[in-house]
């Protein structure tokens, strides 16, 4: 067979990587290329260099080293039994491509993942080699995210952490039964063991840096993971529970959700209908509720409907508020921050502004309207100097009043 050109390989291996949700390049240690030999900088805030028509940002060069794989996970387009075109980069090619893109300001860095070839260790070695070439030979100081392989030798995974800003290990599916059924070659204990080991390494390296100024950094942007939504029967309540357990026990920076999309050559075990993208969105919203709004996991689960899934027509915060109307209305002039954060339509920024502004005056509904996006959604849940919702809060049709209007979808945008 003829050798594939770099362009063909990039097409195949970027196409295979598009099912990975994460593209974050934020939250890492600050560095720049002044005084070095190479290029690159990270200044805390991630930068999205382009947006694809699927609304997702393109911050990193997200490719697989290879899409050959010896595993047979049903949800994955690259599984052994799939019929896709295969290709393989050398570590040198990946490093050169990254640098060429970076010099033109197309990207923030590299997100490298891979199918498993030969063995987990061999694959991990190749990935670490690509990162090593970038860091040591080209003195590249941009962002690197490596997806590590839980089955690989822990020492290799540790090497990855020394070169990368962030490492991640996918938990793949929210339930153990789903994992055994859909990813027969993977093992939950092994995956969680590897995540725990990485957590330990991160803590240890942080501690060392406190005592020795030149101790090497280890994955300064922490670790993250990804779960596939809609490939198995897990409900939103299961998923939220699993995510909060992951946040708590492994100190993860992020749990990403990837709505299972109908992939070419999908396995017959999987549902053909994709789950609504909205479900993924609602899960991210619930993730936000736990991380920035002070909701406990069980409170998010309270917002789910009878089937254990979050409602799709309204957001989880509104769903919670409608279920617990007794806690409302909230007085914007007196209530504490925690209570204000529970008002549907008030985000952390609006709450901060309300609290700052009410030191100067007693707020009227107009004042609240000035610091928020839409007052109509908030009105039933607050009282202000000149506003009392009276029976509005308890109206039976409040949900229909507040739910966003259904729109006709565009056929050809």
């Amino acid at each position, binding site marked *: 067979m003829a050798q594939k050109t770099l362009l063909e390989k990039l097409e195949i291996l970027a196409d295979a990587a598009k099912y990975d949700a994460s593209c974050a390049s934020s939250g890492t240690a600050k560095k720049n290329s002044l005084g070095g030999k190479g290029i690159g900088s990270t200044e805390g805030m991630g930068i999205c260099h382009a947006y694809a028509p699927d609304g997702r940002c393109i911050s990193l060069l*997200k490719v697989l080293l290879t899409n050959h794989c010896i595993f047979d996970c049903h949800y994955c387009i690259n599984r052994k039994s799939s*019929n896709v075109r295969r290709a393989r980069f050398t570590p040198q090619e990946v490093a050169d491509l990254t640098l060429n893109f970076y*010099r*033109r300001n197309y990207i923030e860095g590299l997100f490298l993942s891979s199918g498993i070839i030969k063995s987990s260790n061999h694959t991990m070695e190749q990935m670490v080699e690509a990162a090593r070439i970038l860091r040591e030979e080209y003195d590249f100081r941009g962002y690197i995210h490596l997806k590590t392989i839980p089955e690989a030798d822990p020492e290799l995974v540790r090497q990855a952490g020394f070169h990368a800003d962030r490492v991640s290990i996918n938990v793949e599916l929210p339930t153990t039964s789903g994992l055994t059924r859909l990813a027969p070659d993977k093992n939950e204990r092994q995956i969680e063991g590897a995540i725990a080991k990485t957590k330990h390494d991160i803590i240890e390296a942080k501690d060392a840096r406190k005592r020795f100024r030149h101790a090497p950094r280890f994955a300064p942007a922490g670790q993250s993971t990804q779960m596939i939504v809609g490939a198995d029967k897990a409900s939103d309540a299961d998923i939220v529970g699993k995510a909060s357990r992951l946040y708590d026990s492994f100190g993860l920076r992020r749990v990403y959700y990837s709505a299972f999309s109908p992939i070419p050559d999908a396995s017959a075990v999987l549902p053909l209908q994709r789950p609504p993208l909205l479900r993924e969105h609602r899960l991210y919203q619930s993730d936000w509720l736990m991380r920035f709004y002070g909701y406990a996991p069980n409170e998010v689960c309270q917002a789910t409907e009878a089937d254990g899934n979050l409602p799709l027509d309204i957001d989880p915060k509104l769903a919670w508020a409608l279920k617990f109307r007794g806690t409302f209305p909230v007085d914007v002039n007196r209530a504490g921050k925690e209570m204000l954060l529970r008002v549907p339509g008030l985000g952390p920024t609006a709450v901060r502004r309300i609290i700052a502004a009410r030191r100067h005056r007693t707020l009227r509904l107009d004042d609240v309207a000035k610091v928020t996006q839409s007052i109509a959604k908030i009105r039933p849940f607050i009282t202000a100097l000149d506003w009392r919702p009276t029976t509005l809060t308890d109206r039976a049709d409040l949900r229909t009043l507040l739910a966003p209007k259904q729109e006709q979808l565009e056929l050809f945008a």
Partner: protein
Amino acid sequence: MTAMQRTSLTEHYAVHMPTPDDFAFWRESARDLIQCEVPPDRVSWIEPGGTGDLFGSGSSALPEPSKGAKPVRASKRFLSLARNAALHSDPQRFALLYRLLWRLQANPRVLEDKTDPDVRRVEELDKSVRRDSHKMHAFVRFRQVEAEDGSEYYVAWFEPDHHIVRANAGFFMRRFANMNWSILTPRGCLHWDGEIMRESGPAQRSDAPDGDPVEDLWKSYYSSIFNPARLKVGAMLSEMPKKYWKNMPEAALIPDLIAGAQAREAQMVAAGERQIRERPESLEAIHDAIANCRDCPIAECGTRAVMGEGSVGAHLMIVGEQPGDQEDVAGRPFVGPAGQLLDSALGEAGIDRSAAYVTNAVKHFKFAQRGKRRLHQTPMAKEIDTCRWWLESERAIVRPRIVLALGASAARGLLGKTVSLKSVRGAPIALEDGAELWVTAHPSYLLRLDGAAREEQAALFAADLTRVKARLAELQA
């Protein structure tokens, strides 16, 4: 003499800014004016080339504050807001900042009142300048050109909304410290040679280079990483408004990507689709149905579907890979060379072929034409999986106790996953319906071997058949 005495109550001042983004100059002037207690409505701030307001013709000689004047106070928050807001293209910005600074003297906490119109406006300015800077960091696209001395040199063209170019020089310097580059904009240009940052006046788009060889790679990356199953054009537009598109090479692809998304997604779904249909209830029904089956490309080659042979209730089902050249001609399974070898091996093991049900994992002959000859080609995993529907229907009707799979393709047809022959050979595998699956080599494999290797494999094959025979006898007893 106090400041009040030196500035008359009606005098109007005009401050001429040397450049539109000179925050330090504004700061100095504002400090002096406040110390002389000049209220905001008596100062106009005039940008270079601007005419100022109605009173713009006021005195441009600013009053000098006396030594003992009260120091001007400004909070850190105000300074950081003002530094950004001063870069906005709104001509009213300096007046707004002065008004706020003036109010800040009387009420140091004025910034905390987020409902105040001046505070909200300055925060809006700050926000849009920060956004513009962020988009500059993101959307500047360098193109490589060759410098006169043959070294690599990178040039970008960018059109910012506000006066942010100089303020962002540091970002690009820190990022591309060891690269020679220029950023050209209509509001001034930056040039970095690895050591010194130079500035020059406004440039035009025609000054920037046109293309770059790496752009093709980048475009192909952009269209490959896009997932057509999740089209969200609104989300893209809110972060990457159309005004930036003209200077981004990848943006030219967007209309086609959007237009083609539905077709691409439909393709993705169709590729994985299998219609839900009723299982046929008799072997005859299967026979009729497979003749018309076009679920996979093999069926489109003009060959005929070859149905299994045997009776309902047979204890043993033998499954091969697919019909060969002679089977296709005869319309019966295992009549070619491999079939003859199978027949003799079955005879030696004492298995009666006529009592067994003999069929194939794939019902059509897959071949490549070489002149007049049709050369056998192994079916793809997907094709086997597609045809599995028929094999399962046959099993559901025949209900064999033992299934003998010949070769890896047949094993996949029965198990739904690829197994290695070596690992599953010689021991039974329980199938979901309670039948036992035995896997052995395909007889055509023996036909391709010579000498010692053939003898060795033939012995293994015979041993497998003997085991199956013994097991069959046990079950029948």
